[in-house]
């Protein structure tokens, strides 16, 4: 097993109290697996991604364990995590466009970073240049300032830098959200290419865009209101989802080639619950068409068929 997350709980501190952003998630990502992490804004996917590498100042670790390649990651300890960062777990952040120091040449910054991490620039730079070439950037990039690059170029640069030390786990946080469709395709394919070439072992791709995930992800993990809803292979999630939330999500996607003159494009009515005082039991029950009295008790995230996990009373195989 490459990554094992066990009952991870991370809350956000606010003056009004703790926001239960991530409330007990358990899942695993295998070696070589690209797992998509999907859900609407505020569901906790970014919190999950970030808690695996760097805690924001407002995030507070509550409980749970994270194990990568058999070693426990001390996610609550920012100093302790340093030896794992970049080397074992790395991230392409949401703010990749502004992630580079504007007053330092890219090559110089990378060299500073490598040297500070105890990696010889002389050894690493040839590989760096090779990889830049791979993503379609010329060597000259290293001599430029971030200001001289376009947004797409900056993002690709960050992708190369983040994966330079061949981490076991790469977290890609909303990296396609700000891009146009064709660039999205290019970037997604680059990600897969990284995995195929062995630059990264496994990946968690965070996005709200299921279409992208369908293209590149082996498995998709759907989150709702700080908890896990469903996990299955990409194909299964799209074609035969079982959790009511996932099913509504899929059905609310516009289909290419279909004209919506007669049917209205429906979203899912209602809004996710506030996480300051999360509701008892299943958090989707207020919006779920299948809700019943059972749902007042929190459904466990169980494997209903091979490699397919769902958290829903209606769909566990208790009665089958």
């Amino acid at each position, binding site marked *: 097993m490459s990554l094992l997350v066990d009952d991870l709980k991370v809350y956000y*501190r*606010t*003056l009004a109290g703790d926001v239960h952003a991530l409330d007990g998630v358990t899942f695993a990502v295998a070696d070589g697996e690209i797992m998509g992490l999907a859900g609407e804004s505020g569901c906790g996917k970014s919190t999950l991604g970030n808690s695996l590498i760097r805690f924001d100042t*407002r995030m507070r670790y509550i409980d749970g364990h994270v194990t990568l390649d058999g070693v426990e990651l001390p996610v609550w300890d920012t100093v302790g995590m340093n030896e794992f960062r970049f080397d074992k777990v790395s991230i392409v952040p949401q703010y990749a466009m502004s992630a580079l120091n504007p007053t330092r040449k890219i090559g110089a910054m990378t060299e500073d970073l490598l040297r500070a991490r105890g990696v010889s620039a002389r050894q690493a730079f040839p590989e760096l240049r090779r990889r830049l070439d791979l993503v379609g950037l010329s060597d000259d990039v290293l001599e430029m300032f971030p200001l001289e690059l376009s947004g797409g170029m900056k993002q690709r640069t960050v992708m190369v830098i983040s994966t330079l030390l061949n981490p076991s786990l790469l977290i890609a946080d909303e990296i396609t959200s700000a891009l146009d469709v064709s660039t999205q395709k290019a970037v997604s394919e680059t990600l897969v290419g990284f995995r195929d070439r062995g630059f990264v072992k496994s990946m968690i791709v965070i996005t709200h865009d299921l279409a992208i995930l369908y293209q590149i992800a082996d498995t998709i993990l759907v989150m709702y209101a700080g908890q896990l809803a469903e996990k299955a292979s990409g194909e299964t999630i799209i074609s035969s989802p079982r959790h009511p939330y996932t099913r509504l999500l899929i059905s609310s996607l516009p289909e290419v080639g279909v004209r919506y003159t007669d049917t209205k494009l429906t979203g899912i009515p209602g809004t996710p619950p506030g996480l300051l005082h999360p509701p008892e039991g299943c958090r989707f029950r207020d919006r779920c068409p299948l809700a019943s009295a059972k749902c007042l008790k929190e459904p466990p995230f169980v494997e209903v068929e091979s490699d397919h996990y769902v958290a829903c009373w209606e769909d566990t195989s208790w009665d089958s």
Partner: protein
Amino acid sequence: MSSSVPTAPLASPADPSQVEEPPIAAPTSGLHETLHFALRNKKLVFGLSMTSALLLFAIVGPFIAQHGPLAYTGKLSLAPTTKGGFWFGTTLLGQDVFSQFVTGLRLAFIVGVLGGGIAAIIGMVIGFTAGYRSGIVDEGLNMLTNVVLVIPTFALLLVIAAYLQVRGIMMEAVFIGITSWPWAARALRAQTFSLVSRDFVDMARLSGRSSRQIIFQEIAPNMSSYLFMMFILLFGGAILIAATLDFIGLGPSNTISLGMMMQLSVQNAALQLHLWWWFLPPGLAIMALVGSLYVMNVGLDEVFNPKLREL
């Protein structure tokens, strides 16, 4: 921009840098929430109380003073005492320091509010117009701002005030106002830029609202908190500039101000004579007032900018 207190580089170089990139103070979700944070912010509470206390003193003081500020009482160089109401003692020439002090304090408030207010208004008009209408208007206003910015306005004030025979507090305030606005204009222009390019303005435009409506209903509420903070800094800065001008001898005629008290005390060798009650209180008052204004400003920044709020 966190902790970006855009302090005035007028009388002291505190944070002139922040002028370039102001914070985007997002509108809070209601007056109630703002008030809640406001009352909890120690810096704001401290600054506000101190300023209010001084204001109260300035208002009430002249009424309880037992002598006129310029009156010669015949009791020379008296140390502070309760007899005769000379709570702050008297000057070398026999004038009541307490009375002078409260008069000066009042003038400080007046010059601060007026001078700061005028500078804020000019800065807002120019900065906002430049930010909202780019192009030639922006270029022109920019040039104007740069020129006024570079001119050492203090020296300019010196020259202007030196030529005037009779000087009033209003004049002083107006002069300070019309020379201190450039950095405020710059900061407000930058803030306007960032607001204008924000989505909600585009939305308003798309929905067909007129320019005027957009300005007043969308942009102004966001700017108002920032503008208020600017005003506070200009207020403090004006007080310092006025005190310096007064000290050089360019203060208002026929009255006494804090800066003038310091000037007279130095001229009359109060330092050598150890008449500390004459030269200490005026400077102390300015330091307390301007200091509490600056601290209040930091507090306000934290209240208006949710990202800065400490948990």
